[in-house]
C-alpha cells in the first residue's frame, strides 16, 4: 500500500510539475480516520496530502462534470469503477477524452459490500498504469439485492419498496453522485414538464425511485455510489440491478461503461428481440 501511495504521489506531483494538467483528483484524509474525501491537487506539494487506503472508496470521476471545459486536462486517478464512470460519461458525450489525464491504479478491493460485486478492479481506460494489474476475484452475486426482492411476493415487493421509499427524503444525492445521471438538467428539476410530482408522498417517492432506475437502467455501471451517498441508507441498487438482470437475461452478457463505444441497450434494437407482448 505504501509503495503504491508513493507511486501515486509521485505521479500526481510529476503531472502537476510538468504543467500538463490543471489539477489532479484523488483522495484526501478527513477528520474521521475511516473516511476519505475527494482531493483536488493543484500544486505539486498538494500531492503529499494524497491518501490511498482501504477507505479510499468514493467514486471521483463524477466531479469531471463540474468542469466540462477545462483550460488544461484534468488528472484523475482511475480504478476499474472510475474508468467505467469515465467511459459512461464519454459515451454520453459529456466529457472528452482529450481533457483527461488518466492515472490508472489497479484496485485491491475495499471493505465495502458494493465492492464484492466488482467485475473490473483494473482500469479499463487510462494513460498510464501506476502498478501492475491483478486479476479481479470472482465477483459475488451481481444481482444480490434484486434477487432478494424478486424472491418476495408481489405484495411483499410493494410493501418492501414502499418501506424503502417512505424513508426517501428526495435529496437527490443518488442522482448527484451517479456517473450515469449526467444530464445537463435533471427531469426532477423540470417542473414545467411535470413528469415528477414534487410532493413528499409515497407515490411520488416510488415513482421517483422507478424513474431514476429506468433513466439509469441500461447505462448503470454498477459502482453502487448511489447507495453509498444515500443519507437514509436505502438499498436502491435493488432497482437498477433488476433492470440489468433483465437485460442480461434478454440479450446475454451486457455491461455498461466497459468501453465508450458500445451502444446502450435502449438505444438499439434487434429484429429478433424477445417479444413478450401479444
Amino acid at each position, binding site marked *: 500500500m505504501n509503495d503504491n501511495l508513493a507511486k501515486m504521489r509521485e505521479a500526481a506531483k510529476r503531472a502537476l510539475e510538468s504543467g500538463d494538467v490543471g489539477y489532479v483528483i484523488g483522495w484526501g484524509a478527513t477528520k474521521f480516520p475511516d473516511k476519505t474525501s475527494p482531493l483536488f491537487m493543484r500544486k505539486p506539494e498538494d500531492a503529499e496530502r494524497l491518501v490511498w487506503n482501504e477507505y479510499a472508496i468514493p467514486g471521483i470521476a463524477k466531479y469531471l462534470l463540474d468542469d*466540462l*471545459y477545462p483550460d488544461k486536462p484534468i488528472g484523475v486517478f482511475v480504478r476499474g469503477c472510475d474508468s467505467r464512470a469515465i467511459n459512461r460519461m464519454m459515451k454520453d*458525450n*459529456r466529457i472528452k477524452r482529450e481533457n483527461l489525464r488518466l492515472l490508472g491504479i489497479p484496485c485491491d478491493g475495499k471493505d465495502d459490500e458494493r465492492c464484492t460485486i466488482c467485475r473490473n478492479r483494473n482500469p479499463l481506460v487510462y494513460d498510464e498504469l501506476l502498478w501492475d494489474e491483478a486479476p479481479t476475484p470472482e465477483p459475488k452475486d451481481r444481482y444480490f439485492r434484486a434477487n432478494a426482492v424478486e424472491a418476495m411476493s408481489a405484495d411483499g415487493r410493494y410493501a418492501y419498496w414502499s418501506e424503502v421509499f417512505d424513508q426517501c427524503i428526495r435529496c437527490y444525492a443518488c442522482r448527484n453522485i451517479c456517473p450515469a445521471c449526467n*444530464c*445537463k*438538467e435533471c427531469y426532477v428539476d423540470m417542473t414545467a414538464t411535470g413528469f415528477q410530482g414534487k410532493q413528499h408522498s409515497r407515490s411520488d417517492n416510488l415513482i421517483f425511485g422507478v424513474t431514476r432506475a429506468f433513466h439509469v437502467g441500461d447505462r448503470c455501471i454498477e459502482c453502487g455510489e448511489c447507495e453509498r451517498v444515500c443519507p437514509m441508507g436505502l438499498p436502491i441498487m435493488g432497482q437498477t440491478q433488476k433492470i440489468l438482470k433483465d437485460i442480461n437475461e434478454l440479450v446475454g452478457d451486457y455491461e455498461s461503461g466497459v468501453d465508450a463505444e458500445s451502444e446502450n441497450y435502449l*438505444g438499439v434494437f434487434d429484429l429478433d428481440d424477445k417479444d413478450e407482448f401479444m
Partner: protein
Amino acid sequence: MSKIGVFVCHCGTNIANTVDVERAVASARELPGVAFASEYKYMCSEPGQQMIKDAIEEYGLDRVVIASCSPRMHETTFRKMLKDTKVNPYMLEIANIREQCSWVHTDKAKATEKAIRLIRMSVAKAARDEPLFASSIPIEKRALVIGGGIAGIQAALDIADAGHEVALLEREPSIGGKMAMLDKTFPTLDCSACISTPKMVDAGAHPNIKLLTSCEVVKTEGYIGNFQVTIRRNARYVNHDICTGCGLCETKCPVKTDSEFNHGLSKRPAIYKLFPQAVPSKPVIDKNSCLKLTKGKCGVCEKVCPLGCIDYADEDREFTETFGAIVFATGYELIDWTALYGEYGGGRYPDMLTGLQFERLVNASGPTEGHIVRPSDGKEPKTVAIVKCVGSRDPKKGKSYCSRACCMYAAKHAHQILDKLPGTRVFIFYIDVRTPGKGYEEFYDQTRKDGAIYVRGRISKIYKDGDKLVCNGEDTLLGKQVKVMADMVVLETAMTPSSGIEELATMFGVARDVNDWIQEAHPKLRPVETQVGGVFLAGTCQGPRDIPDTVAHASAAAAKVVSLLNKSEMETSPMISVVRREHCCGCGACEKICPYTAITLEEIDDRVGAKRVKRPIASVNSGLCQGCGACTAACRTGAIDLLGFRNAQILEEVDALCL
C-alpha cells in the same frame, strides 16, 4: 386563459342515439377554459362548419374541440375550415366519440359518461395547443436517376418529357444496362437492341437529360426536394468533349482483356467502348489493363488519336449537385453460381453458360455473330440442357425467392436453339413453369411444340465425361433418375441486387429487405416509393421482374417524380420534434433512435460562467423529421418534444381522464 369552443356532433343519429349530446355539451361548458359549447346534427356539413366559424368570430375563440367521428376521418376537413378563421389550424382537437364511443357502446348513460370524459381529455389537451405553421420547402426541379439500364432510361425519358431536368447516372461507361446485352425478348421475339438502343439514343440526345456515365454516388445530404448528392466521375483518360468516337484507338490498342459486356466470351482492348452501340459512343481507358497506366509504356492510342483526346493524367473527379427527387434504378446482377454450386463444376467447364452469356452467344453482334457454338471447341451442340432455378427457390444454397423472368427466357433460349440449330435436343429442367404474363403461356406452349423437352426436377450433378457434360437428375413426374449427355449447359441463374446497393441504400437511409432488394414504402399501395420522402424505385432494384414490368414500374416512378417536381414548394407537417436547447445535454440518445436521420448533434456556442464554449446539442432537420416522436421517449430530460403531441399535452390528457 384560453378560450376553447367545444362543438359536439350528432352525426345524424350515429352519435346522438347512444350519447346524450345535450348533457355532453352542458358538461363541456363547465370545463376550465371553455368559452363556448354547442351541438349540431352534422358538424362536417357546410352549415355545421359555418356555425363553428361564426362562434369563433362571436366568442373570440382561440382553439376548438370537435367531438365527432374519428380524427382520421375529418381532422383535415376541420383544419382546412380553420384556415379561413382567426384560429390556427393546429389549435384543434378532435374527441372521437363515434368510432370509439357511440358505435362501440350500447348503454346510453355509460356511453354519455365516456363521451364526457373523452371531451374532457381533448379540452385539456387543446388548452396546451400552440399555433403551428406548416413550413414549405422549395423543390429543386431536377431528378437524379441512379442506374442507366432500361428502368433508368425509361424513368429519365418520362421525367424529361414532362419538362424536368434529369441526370442519368451510370457507373459503366455506357448506359444500356442488361437489356442491351440481350438478344431477343420474350414472348414477341423482337430484337432487344432494336428496341432499347433507340431509347438509349433518345436519352443521350434529350435536351433535358444529362448523362453521367462512369459515375458513382459518393455521398448524399439533405432531404426531399433538396438532396445534395456528391458524385464521383471515374477517370476516363479520354476527353469526351473533343472525342468523335472514330474508334481508331480501339483498333490499335495492343491489349486484349476479357469483355465485360460479352461476359468473358470475347476480348476487348484496354481503350474501349462497352459495346458498339454505346451511348455515349466514345471510348474510355480501363486503367487496370492499359499498359501505359499500369506499366508506363505503350501510349499507342495517344499517338494514333487524330484529335489528341487521350489524357493519361485524367483523375477521378468529385462534384456535388442538388436534386429534388432521386430514382433508384440500380437493377440486378446474376448470382455467382460458381461459388454456390460445386456439384455443377463450379465454373470449370467452358461449355456451361449463364443465361446472360447465352444471350451474348446467340446475339448477332456477339462474339460468334449469333452462331450457337461451344466456347471450348467452336462446334455446334447436338444436345443442350437448360437448368432453371439455379440459385432461385433454393434457400439452402441460393435465394428463397423466384427470379420471375427465368421461366420465360429459358423457353426463349430453347426456342432460339431449336430455331437456329434444327434437330438439336433441348432439355429444360424445371421445378415449376411460371408464365404469368400476356402471351407468355402461349409462348411456352409453342416452345414445347417446337420440340423442347421439359423435365420436372433439379439437376443434382454435372460432370465432364470426354467432351460431354453429364447432367444427373431426377424426373420427379416419372420418379426416375435421368442422365443427359449434353454438349452445352445453360444455367438460368437467380437475380440478385446489384453490388453496391447496400452502400447506396445506407447513404439515402432507404431500407432493404432480407434479400437486400430495396424495400418499397408499401408492398401493395406504394410500390414505387421508399419510406424516405423523395426517393423512388424503378425496376429490378426492388425485386426480380421482366422488361415489361420494369418499364411499367419505371414509368410509375417517373409519374411520382413528376408530380413532386411539378410543385414549386412542398408543405411539410409542422408536427415535428423540437429541442429545448438549454436542457439538451447532447447525449445523442435521440440521434440513435431517429429512423430518418433527422437528428444530428450540432455544436452551439454557449457560455459557462465567463467562458465561451462550444457544446453539442441535438438539432432536428424539419425536412427529414416525420413526427414519430421516438426521440422524445428516449430523452430522459424531456429536452426534445413533439409539437402537437407534447409531453405536457399527453400528460394533460391522462390527468383529465383521471379527474
